[in-house]
C-alpha cells in the first residue's frame, strides 16, 4: 500500500490569530544600545513562543538570533524573558498569554548580551563547575552498581530534574547585582550530590557553598522557584543546603 500523506487537517481546525511579538534586539556590530522591534505574525492555537520566533526568523528577518535545540523542554537552550518572566520559549503556549497586548521577549537578565536573545553563559557554567558536579567516592570501585534505597533516592530526586537552562539564576535579584554569587542553579547542582547517599564529597561542596558568595546570599525571593520550567523547588533546595550547613547534618 502506498502511504498517503495526510493533509494537515489539524491546522484548519485549530484557531489561528494575530500575535505581535515585541523583541528586545541587540546587534553588537551596529547597535550601541538594545532596541525594541515589533513583528506581527499569524499563529495557531497550538503554537508556542518558539514557533513565533521561528516564523519571524525564517520568514521575516533571518538575522534574529536566539538559542534553541530540542524545542521540547529538555535541552535548556531557550530560556528567555517572556512578558517579564523567565520561561522556556518552547514550553510557553501563545494561547496562554494575553494576546491583546504585544508579547515581550527579552534575553535573560544578569548576563552579558552577545546578540539579540543570546547571552554569555560562561559565568553560569563556571559556577556549576565549581561545585564539582560529579560523583566523589573513595575506596575500591564496587563490582556491581552502587546501591541506594528508594528513600535515599527520593531525598535529591527534585534536583536531578535540572536542565541547566539558567532561568532560575537569571531571575535572581541577588545575581543581577552580584555576578559573583553562585546562583540558584549551582546550588541545585550541588544539592543533587550533597544529598546523594552514594557520594562522599558533601563536606567539600558544603564548604564551597559556605563562602561569602554561596548560599547565604540567598534572600528567599522565590523568583527561581517561580521561574523553573522543571518545577524544581529551587528555594527549598537552597534552604536544605543552608540547614545542612547550620546543623552539620546531611
Amino acid at each position, binding site marked *: 500500500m502506498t502511504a498517503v500523506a495526510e493533509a494537515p487537517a489539524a491546522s484548519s481546525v485549530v484557531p489561528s490569530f494575530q500575535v505581535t511579538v515585541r523583541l528586545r534586539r541587540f546587534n553588537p556590530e551596529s547597535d550601541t544600545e538594545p532596541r525594541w522591534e515589533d513583528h506581527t505574525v499569524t499563529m495557531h492555537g497550538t503554537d508556542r513562543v518558539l514557533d513565533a520566533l521561528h516564523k519571524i526568523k525564517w520568514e521575516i528577518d533571518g538575522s534574529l538570533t536566539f538559542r534553541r535545540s530540542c524545542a521540547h523542554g529538555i535541552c535548556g537552550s531557550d530560556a528567555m524573558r517572556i512578558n517579564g518572566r523567565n520561561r522556556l520559549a518552547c514550553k510557553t503556549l501563545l494561547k496562554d498569554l494575553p494576546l491583546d497586548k504585544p508579547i515581550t521577549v*527579552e534575553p535573560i537578565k544578569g548576563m552579558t548580551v552577545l546578540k539579540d536573545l543570546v547571552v554569555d553563559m560562561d559565568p553560569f557554567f563556571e559556577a556549576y563547575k565549581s561545585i564539582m558536579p560529579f560523583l566523589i567516592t573513595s575506596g575500591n570501585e564496587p563490582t556491581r552498581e552502587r546501591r541506594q534505597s528508594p528513600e535515599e533516592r527520593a531525598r535529591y530526586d527534585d534536583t536531578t530534574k535540572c536542565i541547566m537552562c539558567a532561568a532560575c539564576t537569571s531571575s535572581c535579584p541577588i545575581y543581577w547585582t552580584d555576578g559573583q554569587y553562585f546562583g540558584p542553579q549551582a546550588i541545585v547542582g550541588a544539592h543533587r550530590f550533597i544529598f546523594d547517599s552514594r557520594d562522599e564529597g558533601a563536606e567539600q561542596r558544603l564548604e564551597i557553598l559556605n563562602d561569602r558568595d554561596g548560599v547565604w546570599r540567598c534572600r528567599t525571593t522565590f523568583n527561581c522557584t517561580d521561574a523553573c520550567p522543571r518545577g524544581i523547588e529551587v528555594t527549598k533546595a537552597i534552604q536544605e543546603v543552608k540547614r545542612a550547613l547550620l546543623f552539620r547534618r546531611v
Partner: protein
Amino acid sequence: MPKAPAGTLYRGREGMWSWVAHRVTGVGIFFFLFAHILDTALVRVSPEAYNEVIATYKNPIVGLMEVGLVGAVVFHAFNGLRIVLVDFWSKGPRYQRHMFVAVGVLWVVLMVPFVIRHLSHVFGG
C-alpha cells in the same frame, strides 16, 4: 562590551515583592532610629532643647508619618518571622505564599484599630 540592558521590570511574585518591601521598610526604620537616637541624645545636651524638638513633632504631618512608621515596623516584624520560617521550618518554602497572605492579614488587623485610634488623637486633639 555592552552593559546588560535594563529592559522591562522583572515580573516577580509575592516572594520578590515581599523582599523589596522588607528592604524598603528596613531602610526606612533605620533612618527613623537614626533620627530617634539623635533627638533622644539631645536630653543630655539640654532637657529644654529636647522638649522643644519633641514639641515640633506634635503636628498632623508627623502624625501621618507615625502611621507610616508603625506600618513599616509591623510589616517588617511579621515578614521577618515569615523569612525565619522559610529558612528554618522544613515546610517553610512550600508555604511561603500562604505565610505572606497571613502577614498581610495580620498587618491589616493590627493597623486598622491603630490608625483609627491614632488619627483620632492626631486630628481630634
